[in-house]
């Protein structure tokens, strides 16, 4: 048996390691100061996909991502770890998309990919933490979903069934669903395997069209230009709105029912606080004070 698997992956700013220069003095986010990374839970999803590929020879794993030209790095990273290929959905018309417009765009691209058994992605992305895109893609494709997956336990080809262990509030459950299906994976699932040295050698020069254009924009020539003709797999696929027959009204800002009304920088209301040292006398006085006003004891 072989499976056709599409991994949904997103390039995100690393919001977990926000330095002091991450916010501008005006209180907006300085995206340039944040490194762009492979969304962590999408890596957990990739690992589940690669395990199925190991288990069922002949299976293929394709990465689908949406973003600017530099997001081709996500496909490359996937290739380094064992994916077979990928698609970068990239167009100005996709910009400003909320989760609904994002899932619309992804669903149109998945329809274009066509033949698939499993769509799998991380539960949520660290720049939004919404966990909405997976279920919304499923709904748009008319498929069911299994969210919060911990592990794919079994795929039964004859019955076209998949068995998944998932987290629920206060526990776990094992569910069985039909293929094709959309699955979202938790960060607590098995971590992704590291890059494979051979695959890094094979794909390190793989580039998307916009990345190539960025290299050659000042009249520079593309290094190893002949390689891209000899080895077509080094040309990473980019799709625009028209490539996936997208309806412009449903894409980007215009396809987004939610609007950001206001953004506030985090300014805590400073309380009048009492600062003490960690020396014995200070700590003892504090404890005595807390006991006296019945906060403790």
């Amino acid at each position, binding site marked *: 048996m072989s499976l056709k698997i599409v991994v949904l992956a997103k390039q995100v700013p690393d919001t977990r390691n926000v330095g002091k220069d991450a916010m501008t003095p005006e209180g907006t986010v300085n995206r340039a100061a944040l490194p762009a990374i492979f969304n962590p839970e999408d890596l957990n999803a990739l690992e589940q996909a690669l395990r199925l590929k190991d288990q069922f020879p002949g299976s293929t794993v394709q990465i689908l991502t949406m973003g600017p030209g530099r997001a081709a790095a996500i496909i490359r990273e996937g290739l380094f770890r064992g994916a077979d290929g990928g698609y970068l959905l990239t167009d100005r018309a996709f910009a400003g998309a909320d989760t609904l417009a994002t899932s619309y765009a992804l669903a149109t691209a998945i329809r274009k990919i066509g033949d698939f058994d499993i769509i799998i992605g991380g539960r949520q992305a660290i720049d939004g933490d919404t966990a909405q895109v997976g*279920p919304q893609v499923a709904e748009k494709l008319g498929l069911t979903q299994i969210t919060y997956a911990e592990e794919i336990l079994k795929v039964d080809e004859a019955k076209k069934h998949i068995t998944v262990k998932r987290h629920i509030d206060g526990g776990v459950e094992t*569910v069985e669903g039909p293929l094709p299906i959309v699955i979202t994976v938790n960060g607590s699932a098995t971590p992704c395997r590291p890059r494979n040295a051979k695959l890094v050698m094979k794909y390190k020069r793989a580039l998307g069209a916009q990345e190539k254009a960025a290299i050659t924009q000042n009249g520079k020539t593309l290094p190893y230009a002949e390689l891209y003709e000899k080895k077509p797999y080094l040309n990473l696929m980019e799709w625009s709105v028209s490539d996936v027959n997208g309806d412009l009204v449903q894409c980007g800002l215009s396809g987004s*029912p939610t609007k950001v*009304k*206001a953004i506030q920088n*985090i300014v805590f209301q400073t*309380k009048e606080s009492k600062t*003490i040292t960690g020396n014995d006398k200070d700590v003892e006085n504090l404890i005595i004070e807390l006991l006296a006003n019945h906060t403790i004891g």
Partner: protein
Amino acid sequence: MNNIFVYCEIEGTTVADVSLELLSKGRKLANQLGCQLEAVVAGTNLKDIEKQVLPYGVDKLHIFDAPGLFPYTSMPHTSVLVNLFREEKPQICLMGATVIGRDLGPRVSSALTSGLTADCTALEIGAHEDKKAGKTYENLLYQIRPAFGGNIVATIVNPEHRPQMATVREGVMKKEILDPNYKGEIINHDVNKYVNDTDYIVRVIERHVEKAKNNLKGSPIIVSGGYGVGSKENFGLLYELAKELHAEVGASRAAVDAGFCEHDRQIGQTGVTVRPKLYIACGISGQIQHIAGMKESGIIISINSDENAPINNIADYVIIGTIEEVIPKMIKYYKQNSK
């Protein structure tokens, strides 16, 4: 028509706390908007379920009672809400930011092409002016949530699409019974009119739910640790202090991610929201997601070697020092003085 709907989550035959909290919030929003509050329950053997729901001020309760609706699976519950909402056209729909709410909400919003905001920390009613379109909207739901890793707080509105949908975590809103004898209308729906047989395609083979192992939500004192605690071993100090004070131990996301503490003790936007009498923050820098989950604590003590840690701004007492140094002293002087 045009009312506020709350989707009530069911475990067995019990309505989840988060849903009751949202009914209380929904009641207040309904009063403000001059509309009714309606609730939806979907499950199996829901006899007398109204007794759990109506006292929160619910004007109309929609009951969907059929085998196969418990345990929850995505498709049947989506069909219930999507088809009901097509008839009832709610202006607002609230659900818990639980595993179920975060599985169901996006599916429903996608089917209705309505906007959904996840994990709101506040909900308000207000106006919105779209300057580009030259339009002003009255009485929109302000969906307020930390965003971008908690470095900003965003207010989201859905001007054109209905229902305006939002999920809210357990503990964020307060549960308050309005009137134990509140009179609301009960509608027992014919489930077959809303759910297709083909919707029951995911089978729950095995299910294991435990009551929460800790009592973070109910504990009057919480000793909580962040990344600055440094190690799992140092977290042991927090447990020692907690034992003395009859407190529970909590953690920030950074500490949980670093493996210092179990996930079910995480406090903050993506964990539990708490409001204890005393909150002792140990080595917690104070990212907004964490603050969102504990800022309503009565007294906050911050123990931190960094005097500029953001959490110090909301603390009542700041102790400048390391965990290893300060906590043993707190235990020592508590023992000495509490007798």
